[in-house]
């Protein structure tokens, strides 16, 4: 095989999930012995592409070649491993109670007399493997007691033990401390330089891309936009490619924001679902008639931040104050009663009950008003129906019928259902996350107008979005968030897109 021969080739790969085209005609060649970084926002399709390579899913269209050989129609992880592809997932697939050696051998244990498990031999093999690749590990340590960084090393060794020479790492630094990240990079450099390995790195941290990779592919909305030599690009260019999109909309803003502080967050910190710190001492203030836009690449603590404010996630430090009252310990019901509405980022998990009808979803939160409940006992279905019809026409919710499950609506109409419900409380404070994700252009315009109407009417709005255009268009203030911390604060108009992308990826 020549020096620059492709070791992996994707040819016109398309991957259709119900409702989403996760990969759209991707053609890509990975060269032998390089570190290739695949960057893009969440949902850009980079993990999907690698899952196809590893055989976790089958492409709808297109073909994949590994070392010049096309993959079998029944391509699966076992076959991928046999062809030399190993993958380390974000969430490790290890048995915590087993030793390092047992985990590495799992599934291909050496046998004594074809019957007995040979613990000595596997320990020796793993020791030898560690030395060969220069990854020190004690084969007899219990995996559950190792640090996350060392567990990752076990995963890498597991792939190498199975003969992988193409190693896919999915967001490898997401769970690591800076020191562990540094060690991982040394490991990657070493195995690439000495052992002719090829490493494919899935990430959205551009600093890592610049430091580690030889070439970088940028994906957005399922398409591979460009493949660049890392030495010929920089973080700003990559950030613009990753998130950039042209502005199509007109100015809606009226008047300057007020000066009264409505919502303020002070040194807030919280953990994510895995128990790792996700919000690390965030402070911000929203005034009346002001939209504060939180920009950041997804997964940098935005979700946890909004959940904390709304009382859905326990906080580990700091306070949230609403109109001078500490609301840190209140539950969502109490916070709503104080006049806060929330449009969550995750429609089907948090914002709606897919199996309940459109009307029911519109009504939640008002079901105990006398209009809809006689003596807080009898559900007044007729009134609920009329109310649903009124809201649906006001917000132009298109459905096959308001008595159908809301899950049967399109994404845009589901989003309008949430919007209609949350805006109907006439709350003076709004927390809005990803209001237009997966929504078509027409609905985006409509949703933006509605949000702006609220702002012009004096509402204090915290807007979290991964869409820079949206933030630039709607926000009065912009704050950038990176790894759970605020990295910059700018009045809208005093910073441009490229520069903000830099802050968003921890540039400063």
């Amino acid at each position: 095989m020549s020096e620059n021969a492709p070791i992996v080739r994707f040819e016109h790969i398309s991957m259709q999930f119900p409702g989403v085209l996760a990969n759209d005609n991707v053609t890509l060649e990975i060269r032998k012995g390089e570190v290739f970084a695949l960057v893009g926002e969440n949902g850009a399709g980079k993990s999907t592409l690698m899952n196809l390579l590893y055989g976790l899913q089958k492409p709808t269209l297109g073909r994949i070649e590994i070392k010049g050989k096309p993959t079998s129609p029944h391509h699966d992880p076992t076959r991928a491993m046999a062809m030399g592809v190993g993958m380390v997932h974000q969430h490790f697939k290890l048995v915590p109670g087993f030793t390092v050696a047992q985990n590495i051998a799992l599934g291909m244990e050496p046998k004594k007399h074809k019957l007995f498990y040979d613990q000595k031999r596997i320990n020796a093999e793993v020791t030898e493997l560690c030395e060969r690749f220069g990854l020190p590990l004690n084969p007899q340590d219990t995996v559950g007691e190792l640090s996350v960084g060392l567990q990752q090393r076990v995963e890498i060794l597991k792939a190498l033990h199975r003969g992988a020479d193409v190693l896919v790492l999915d967001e490898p630094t997401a769970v690591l401390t800076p020191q562990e990240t540094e060690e991982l990079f040394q490991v990657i450099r070493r195995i690439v330089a000495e052992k002719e390995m090829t490493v494919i790195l899935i990430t959205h941290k551009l600093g890592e891309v610049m430091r580690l990779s030889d070439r970088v592919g940028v994906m957005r909305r399922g398409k591979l936009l460009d493949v660049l030599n890392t030495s010929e690009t920089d973080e700003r260019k990559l950030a613009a490619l990753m998130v950039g999109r042209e502005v199509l909309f007109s100015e809606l803003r009226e008047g300057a924001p007020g000066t009264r502080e409505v919502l303020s967050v002070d040194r807030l910190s919280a953990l994510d679902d895995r128990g790792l710190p996700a919000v690390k001492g965030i402070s911000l203030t929203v005034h009346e008639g002001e939209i504060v836009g939180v920009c950041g690449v997804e997964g940098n603590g935005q979700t946890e931040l909004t959940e904390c404010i709304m009382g859905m996630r326990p906080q580990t430090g700091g306070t949230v104050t609403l109109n001078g009252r500490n609301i840190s310990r209140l539950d969502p019901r109490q916070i709503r009663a104080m006049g806060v509405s929330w449009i969550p980022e995750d429609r089907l998990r948090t914002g709606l009950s897919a199996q309940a009808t459109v009307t029911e979803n519109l009504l939640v939160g008002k079901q105990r008003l006398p209009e809809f409940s006689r003596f807080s006992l009898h559900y007044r279905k007729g009134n609920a129906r009329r109310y649903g019809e009124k809201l649906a026409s006001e917000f132009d919710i298109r459905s096959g019928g308001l008595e159908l499950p809301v899950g049967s609506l399109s994404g845009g109409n589901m989003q309008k259902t949430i919007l209609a419900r949350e805006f109907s409380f006439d709350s003076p404070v709004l927390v809005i996350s990803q209001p237009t994700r997966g929504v078509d252009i027409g609905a985006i315009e409509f949703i933006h107008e509605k949000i702006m109407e609220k702002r012009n009417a004096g509402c204090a709005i915290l807007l979290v979005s991964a869409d820079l255009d949206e933030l630039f268009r709607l926000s009065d203030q912009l704050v950038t968030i990176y790894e759970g911390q605020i990295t910059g604060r700018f009045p809208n108009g005093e910073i441009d897109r490229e520069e903000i992308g830099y802050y968003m990826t921890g540039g400063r």
Partner: protein
Amino acid sequence: MSTGFLQSVRTLFALKPKQKLTAQYLLSLFAAVALAFLVGAGIMLLCGYDPITCYAALFKGALGKPRALGNTLAKTVTLCLTGLAMSLAAKAGIFNVGGEGQLYLGGLAAAVVGARMNGSPAWLIVACSLLAAMAAGGAYAWIPGALKVKLKVNEVVTTILLNSAAIYFCSYMANGPLKTAERGIESGTDSIASYAAFTPLIRLSNLTTGVFYAAVITLLVWYLMTRSTVGFEMKITGTNERFARYGGIRADRLALWGMTLSGMICGVVGLLEVFGLHHRFMTTISSEFYFDGMLVAMIMRYQPFGVILMSFFFAILNIGGSAMELSAGISSEVMLIVQSVIIFFMAAEGGISEKLRAGAAARRIRRDARRAGKGAAV
């Protein structure tokens, strides 16, 4: 805790409370019942019995005579109440697998009150016994409910375990401190005031005036689940607990109340057995009645109206099965097989039809993509 228990737990995880009764589901249910009867017929043939005679004996034994009909209806009441108890809790997002223990405690409490108050007016005895039974069953269900809500202890595990505790406790009371002095009673409490006991509606059958209490409870539960504001909140909580919390519904309180009410209904079932049939508490007042009710509830996806209808059907199988054994000679266990096959198919239903649907969707997508690809290539 044998077959019924095992079946229940298995089925529990297959039939999710989120699913609705759709036309397609009812069609599957009908198909499952038909298939189960065919399987039953096959077994009868294998054993050398004529299926038609056997099935005729089954339905005749369940519905043919007033007395048989009365017994079938009495069985329906038990299944229906226990099924509704299960549904009520499940709809609020919490599983009550401990109804059997709540039933025992309710029966014991009712029997004690019914015996001690001998001499008071009948209505007062019944009212106090009802309160006692509901308090006992409800309190016993509140424990696992509170553990779940406050400490996130899995309620399936705790309720199953609490069953045994209650059953053995009641057994001890009936054989020990509360054992009657009457002669000829091996184990059991004093009998309740005879004038307060429910009277049979059909001579010699198990159907008593207790059925009216059951009817009132059924109506109340149906109203609560389908027509009330609480029912609305339960539906939201049961379909998406996170969304309910986000929307300001007190999901925790709903679950705890769902569990407690469920236990109260089970307590009343115990009372019905005591006041209607045995006139005292005995350890034989129930033989896994609650687990049968659970199955009915799960098969009908916790829809109250469906539970009522399905209870009647299962009661026919149960009562008719014994009659069939007497008249046609084939063991009534065949009906257990038929029941199991129905449950088996209904547990697999979701998976089977989902698989069929997913397969069709994938084929469609691939076909469309291929067409689009060809179009572009040309």
